[in-house]
């Protein structure tokens, strides 16, 4: 992509819907936010609030949307080109579903390299396994030989091996044990500072988002009802009633 990198991701008046005419369901209504390059933005909301749908629209998996989405200064159209996939990668929610059951770790990583014409696959694979904290002995294992946390590390390695500048995270830890969650979150944080990545993260867990992101958008029923930064969140300074409700629930959970 070109060097117009004043913005990482920018959404303006984005509507996303499923179905047409009478069966039309509006999943996201008039969403707009911007993530600076190297920044991290979190979308919080309950299930069905449309937060994952925004990620799907950016990646082109949700085809019916209107409005303006731009990535690294380029406005996205109907189709995504290879350069887009080179720059934007995604880590999925469920590591048990996001790895092909008949492909070894090595196969997954080499295919990513092959698709984008990288040289020296052996060296790059060894390097990325190191980076995500997997031993070299994992290289030729099958997904069924890996634990959930290890699978998620492989998924992160798959996303990062083609050196993208933006990483979309779709609840990357919600399918994992609490102790493994912390490991993965710390890994993601370390990788972000090492590689100067832009994160757009979706989660239903306020604690996870406030750990990872500097700015947060709260979603409810398809709308972003409030935007606040982490300082405001930690100080529990929310203005919208839904955000207050979320904060209350989160604080209560921690006291229990």
């Amino acid at each position, binding site marked *: 992509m070109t060097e117009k990198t004043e913005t990482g991701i920018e959404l303006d008046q984005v509507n996303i819907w499923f179905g047409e005419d009478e069966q039309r369901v509006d999943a996201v209504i008039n969403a707009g936010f911007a993530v600076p390059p190297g920044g991290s933005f979190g979308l919080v909301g309950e299930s069905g609030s449309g937060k994952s749908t925004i990620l799907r629209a950016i990646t082109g998996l949700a085809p019916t949307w209107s409005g303006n989405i731009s990535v690294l200064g380029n406005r996205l159209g109907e189709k995504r080109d290879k350069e887009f996939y080179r720059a*934007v990668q995604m880590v999925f929610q469920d590591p*048990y579903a*996001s790895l*092909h*059951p008949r492909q*070894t770790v090595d196969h997954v990583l080499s*295919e990513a390299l092959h698709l984008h014409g990288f040289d020296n696959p052996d060296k790059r694979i060894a390097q990325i396994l190191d980076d995500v904290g997997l031993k070299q*002995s*994992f290289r030729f294992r099958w997904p069924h030989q890996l634990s959930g946390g290890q699978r998620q590390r492989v998924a992160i390695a798959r996303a990062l091996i083609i050196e993208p500048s933006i990483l979309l995270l779709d609840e990357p830890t919600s399918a994992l044990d609490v102790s493994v969650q912390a490991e993965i979150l710390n890994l993601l944080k370390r990788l972000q500072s090492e590689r100067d990545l832009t994160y757009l993260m979706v989660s239903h867990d306020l604690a996870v988002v406030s750990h990872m992101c500097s700015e947060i958008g709260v979603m409810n029923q398809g709308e972003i009802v409030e935007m606040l930064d982490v300082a405001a969140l930690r100080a529990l300074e929310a203005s919208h009633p839904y955000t207050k409700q979320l904060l209350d629930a989160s604080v209560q959970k921690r006291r229990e």
Partner: protein
Amino acid sequence: MSIPDACPQKQITWREWLTTDTPASRRQARLSVWYHSWLAFRSNLMAMFGLTILLALVLIGLFAPILAPQDPFAQDLAARLSAPGVNGYMFGSDSLGRDILSRLIYGSRITLYIVSLVALMAPVAGLFVGTAAGYLGGWVDVVLMRITDIFLAFPRLVLALAFVSALGAGIENAVLAIVLTAWPPYARIARAETLTIRNADFIHAIKLQGAGTLRVITRHIWPLCISSLVVRVTLDMAGIILVAAGLGFLGLGAQPPSPEWGAMISDGRRFILDHWWVATMPGLAIFIVSLAFNLLGDGLRDVLDPKKSSQ
């Protein structure tokens, strides 16, 4: 026991090399999966029984000239319709005095030929149609599946009959006719499998890596469809042998004097009450081979079932 060069330690056996949790190369990872499947398959006695029979059939076909006691086409009208054991004919002789055992042995080649041609063509055609329909969806799906429905609506033997009568009798045309009627169920299975995986996250993930449609279908969807197709093919083989035999019986498959098993039964039909062996021996051969395919298919299903082994 020799030691493969890829293994790092000095004193490990093939078995340890194959069952390790930490394979060191692509080849070892793949072989070790096959080895585990083989271990699971080996524990199924009936399936092993079926596999043994089929291996024996292949060997018999390969070494037919050595194994057959006589020329399958040599006639001896003086010794026609000899009972089993009489005149040195172990399985008896037919109406032209030809040795039935030798004809059965040579006939195994024809059976294998038909089976392997059908097994190569029908599932592949079904795989192409089914995965394309399932993955692309929309009007491609509608068009392909309606065509499949049309073929499914024809009675198999009748369509094969019409096809063979249009193109002329012979084994190749019989095989084509069988393929023409055998692919729709494979297309259905492949489409159903594709529909369950096309929205899986790992397919989304590879799309996000920039893989094109062709690559997604052939590299990522096919490997998951193939195992259920293989199982279905082995289970269908019995039926395919029977249809081939049926076409031979009706005079539309292999032509005389070729020792095709169905044609042999058809020959023996006239004498079935007085000279039972003429029709019974090839019938038994068809029965045993069909049974072997069914047993093998059942065992393969246990090993290959994607619902079980994918996790």
